[in-house]
C-alpha cells in the first residue's frame, strides 16, 4: 500500500492525543475521599474490571479512528495488475473497412476487451508511421504493466510481446506530408513550383486526384502514387506580392478523414536582408544575387552588426566563427529567432541542385553543406522543438532535420547560416490555424505533432509552443478523433504532448471501462478507510455507553 498524498501522514503525530485526553479524562473523573472502601469493593466485585477494560477499549478505538482518518486523507492506494490496450491510431488505422474505419473497429474491440478483462486504461499511440505504436509501448514501461497484460490493436505486424490483434482494411492510404515552394524566395511575375510531399502508406501503386486551391487559382491533377514517399510539383505564378493561402486535397483515398493540407506563402515585394559579420563588398554581391529576376525586388541591406529581426526576411551570417555565442545577442522575441540555449542543430538536406545559385558549387562543397552540422540545438522547454518566427507573422516548427533551401552567394566565404522567410513551415497538416481566437473547439487529428500529456492532475495539457503557454482541458472524444473541447484565445501552434502517457476516452461508449483512472494500476482505498473510521466511531459510541 502506498499513499498519494503522504504529506497528510504528518497527522500521525496526533496519535498520542487520545492517550493524552485519556489521561485528562482520568483526572477529570471526580476524585472523592471516602472513609472506608471495604464495602465499596464488596459492591463492585467484577464491575471494576469491566470499567478498566472499557477504558482501554475506548482508548484503542479512538486511536484507531484517528489512525484511519489520517491514512484516509493521505489517499491510500494499492497497486494491482493492470491491463492496457494500445490502439494504433496512425494513418493506416483510418483506412476504410466496409462502411467503418479501422480505428472505430479497434475501439470496439478495445471496449469489449476492457469490459471482459477489466482493463481500465486504454492508450493510443500518436504517431503516423509504421513503428509508431512502439514508442507508446515504451511509455508503458514506467507503468510496470506486464507484457502479457498488454493488448495491441493495430493494422500491421509489429514485433511485440503481448497480445497483438491485427485488423486490416484498405491499404491505400495517402498522407500529405509537406507542401513548399521550389523557390523559397519567389519573385512576383516569375514561375514557381509548388512541391507536395506525399506518402503512400500502402503496398501498391495508386492513382489519385490532387486538388490544389490557391485562392487565386486552383488546379487539378491526377497523380500516380507509388508506395513510399514521393514529391510532385504543380506550377504556379504569383502575379503580385502578398500572402497566399491554400490547401492541397487528395480525394478518394482510403482514409475516412479529410486529407487536406493547408499552406500559405508570402510573396514579398521587398526583401530585407540582414547580414551579420558583413563587409561592404559582400553587400554588393548579396544585393545582386537576391534580385536576379526581371521584376525588381527591392533589397534593403541592414547594415548594422545586429539587424533588427522583426523587419528582416533573410539573415546571412558571414565570417562569424562563434555563431553560437553571438546568437543570443541578436534574438528578439517577436519575429525573431528564438534561441533559448546555445545548442542548435541543423543539417542541410535536399538542396535543389538545379537552382542557379548552386550551379557554381562543386559537388564537394554541396556535400559539405548537406552533411555539415552547423548548430545543434535543443530547447527543453518547448519539448525539443525550435520555433522560427518570421517578419510577416508566420511561425514554423523546426524539426531537427530540416529541408532547407539556401541562397549561396558564390563570392561569400565562410557563410555559416542563411535563413529564408520562405522556409517551408513544418506544420502538421492536421493542425488548423485559427484565424482569431474564439470559443470553438480545435479539431486535432492524431499525428506526429499531436501529443497529449497528463500531469498529476490527470487533465490534458496543450502547449502553445509559440507563447509557451499551457492549458489544461478535459477531452470529450468524438468518433474519429480526439475532439478536445478547447478554446484557444489566439492563433498559434497548439501542441499536445506525448499521447503515450495518456489514458484516453476513445469514445463515450467505452467511457465506463476505459475511463482514465487516477494513475497507473492503482486502486484507491480512501473510501474504505473512511468507512472503517466511521465504524470505529460507532463502536466507540456503543462501548462508551456500556454498563457492567
Amino acid at each position, binding site marked *: 500500500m502506498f499513499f498519494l498524498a503522504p504529506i497528510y501522514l504528518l497527522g500521525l503525530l496526533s496519535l498520542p492525543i487520545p492517550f493524552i485526553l485519556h489521561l485528562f479524562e*482520568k483526572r477529570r473523573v471526580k476524585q472523592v475521599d471516602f*472513609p*472506608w*472502601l471495604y*464495602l*465499596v469493593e464488596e459492591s*463492585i466485585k467484577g*464491575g471494576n474490571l469491566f470499567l478498566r477494560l472499557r477504558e482501554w477499549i475506548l482508548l484503542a478505538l479512538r486511536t484507531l479512528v484517528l489512525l484511519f482518518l489520517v491514512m484516509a486523507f493521505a489517499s491510500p492506494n494499492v497497486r494491482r495488475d493492470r491491463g492496457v490496450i494500445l490502439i494504433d491510431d496512425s494513418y493506416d488505422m483510418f483506412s476504410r473497412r466496409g462502411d467503418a474505419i479501422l480505428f472505430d473497429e479497434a475501439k470496439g474491440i478495445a471496449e469489449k476487451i476492457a469490459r471482459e478483462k477489466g482493463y481500465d486504461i486504454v492508450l493510443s499511440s500518436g504517431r503516423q508511421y509504421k513503428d509508431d505504436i512502439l514508442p507508446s509501448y515504451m511509455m508503458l514501461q514506467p507503468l510496470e504493466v506486464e507484457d502479457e497484460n498488454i493488448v495491441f490493436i493495430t493494422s500491421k505486424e509489429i514485433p511485440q510481446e503481448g497480445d497483438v490483434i491485427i485488423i486490416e482494411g484498405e491499404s491505400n492510404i495517402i498522407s500529405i506530408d509537406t507542401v513548399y515552394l521550389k523557390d523559397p524566395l519567389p519573385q512576383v511575375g516569375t514561375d514557381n513550383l509548388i512541391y507536395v510531399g506525399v506518402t503512400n502508406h500502402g503496398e501498391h501503386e495508386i492513382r489519385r486526384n490532387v486538388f490544389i486551391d490557391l485562392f487565386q487559382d486552383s488546379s487539378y491533377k491526377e497523380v500516380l502514387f507509388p508506395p513510399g514517399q514521393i514529391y510532385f510539383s504543380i506550377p504556379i505564378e504569383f502575379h503580385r506580392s502578398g500572402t497566399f493561402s491554400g490547401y492541397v486535397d487528395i480525394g478518394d483515398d482510403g482514409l475516412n478523414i479529410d486529407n487536406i493540407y493547408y499552406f500559405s506563402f508570402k510573396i514579398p515585394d521587398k526583401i530585407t536582408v540582414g547580414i551579420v559579420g558583413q563587409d561592404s563588398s559582400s553587400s554588393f554581391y548579396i544585393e545582386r544575387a537576391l534580385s536576379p529576376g526581371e521584376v525588381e525586388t527591392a533589397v534593403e541591406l541592414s547594415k548594422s552588426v545586429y539587424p533588427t529581426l522583426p523587419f528582416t526576411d533573410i539573415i546571412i551570417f558571414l565570417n562569424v566563427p562563434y555563431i553560437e555565442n553571438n546568437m543570443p545577442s541578436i534574438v528578439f522575441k517577436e519575429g525573431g529567432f528564438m534561441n533559448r540555449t546555445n545548442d542548435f542543430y541543423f543539417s542541410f538536406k535536399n538542396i535543389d541542385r538545379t537552382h542557379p545559385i548552386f550551379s557554381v558549387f562543386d559537388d564537394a562543397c554541396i556535400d559539405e553543406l548537406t552533411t555539415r552540422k552547423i548548430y545543434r540545438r535543443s530547447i527543453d522547454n518547448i519539448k525539443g522543438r525550435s520555433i522560427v518566427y518570421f517578419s510577416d507573422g508566420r511561425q514554423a516548427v523546426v524539426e531537427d532535420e530540416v529541408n532547407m533551401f539556401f541562397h549561396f552567394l558564390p563570392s561569400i566565404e565562410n557563410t555559416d547560416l542563411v535563413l529564408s522567410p520562405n522556409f517551408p513551415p513544418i506544420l502538421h497538416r492536421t493542425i488548423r490555424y485559427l484565424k482569431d481566437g474564439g470559443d470553438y473547439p480545435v479539431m486535432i487529428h492524431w499525428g506526429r505533432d499531436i501529443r497529449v500529456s497528463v500531469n498529476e492532475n490527470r487533465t490534458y495539457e496543450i502547449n502553445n509552443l509559440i507563447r509557451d503557454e499551457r492549458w489544461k482541458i478535459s477531452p470529450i472524444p468524438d468518433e474519429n478523433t480526439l475532439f478536445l473541447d478547447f478554446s484557444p484565445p489566439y492563433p498559434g501552434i497548439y501542441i499536445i504532448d506525448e499521447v503515450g502517457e495518456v489514458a484516453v476516452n476513445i469514445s463515450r461508449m467505452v467511457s465506463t471501462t476505459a475511463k482514465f483512472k487516477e494513475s497507473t494500476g492503482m486502486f484507491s482505498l480512501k473510501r474504505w478507510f473512511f468507512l472503517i473510521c466511521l465504524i470505529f466511531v460507532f463502536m466507540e459510541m456503543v462501548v462508551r455507553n456500556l454498563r457492567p
Partner: protein
Amino acid sequence: MRKHIDPYVIARMRSLELKARTVVDGFLVGIHKSPYHGFSQEFVEHRQYDPSDDPRYIDWKVYGRTDRFYLKQFEEERNLRAYIVIDGSRSMAYKNAGVMTKWEYAAVLAASFAYLLILNKDAISLSIFDTSTRDHTPPSTTRAGLSRVFDALEASSPNGKTKIAKAIEELSSKAKRRAFILVLSDLFDNMDSTLRSLINLHARGNEVVVVQILDKAERDFPFKGSLRLYDMETRDEILVDANTMRDKYRENMDTFVSSIRRELWRNNIDYITVDTDAPIERVLYFILKREKV
C-alpha cells in the same frame, strides 16, 4: 414533643464546652418535661425526684432501669465511673451530608456526656484511639478533670488508621472495676475483631454502650457517575460507576450495620447507629435510657 437543638446550631458554636453545656441544658430541659412516674419501693436509698430538686443529683442508673427519677442519697456510693472511648482515626474526619464531621459529632457527644456525668458527681475518663490509644485522661469527678477532657478533645483531630479492638483491649486493662464504657466510633474496622473485643469488655462486667456514628452519605452513597474513590486512611483508590453499584452498596451497608447490631444485642451490649445530623441530646437520652431514639 421535646424540641431538640439543631446540630447545625451546635456545630456553629466555637467552644466545645459551650457546645456540651448547650446540649446538656437542652437535655435537662427535656428531662423537666418528663412525666412523673411515682415512687418505687425497690430503691429505698433513693428519694423520688421532685421538680424543685436539683437535677444534678438524679441517679441516672436508676432512671435507666426504672424510667423514674430518683435522687441519690449517698452520692459517693452511687457514683458512676464512666469511660468514653472515642475513635480518633482519619475516617472520622469524613463529612458529606452532615453538618459536622463524625469526629466533631463524637466529640460534642463525648463532651456532653462527660459534662452531664460531672454534674452528677460521676467520674469520667476519656480515651482517644486510632491504631491504639493515643490520648487518655484518667477518671475524675472534678471540674478540672472535665476540663482535661474538653482540652483533650479540642486538641485532638482525626488521624491515622483504625484498630478498635486494640483500643478496647487497652481500656479493658485500665478499667479495674466495673464501669460504664461508652464507645463512640464509625466501627469501620474488621468486624470480627471489633465485636470480639467489645463482647470481652462486656463480659468483664462492664456496661458497654456503642454508638456508631455515620455520615448520611456513608449509608446512602448519593454519588453519581464515574468516581475515583480514595480511602481516607489507607489512600487506596478505586474507580467506580456510582449509578451501577449504589444499590448493592446500600444493601451491604445495611447488612454491615444489622450484623453489628445483632451481635451486640445478643451479647447485651447496647448499640445505636446515628447520623451526624441527629440531635445530640437524643443520643444522650439513648445512652442513659438504652432505648433507641
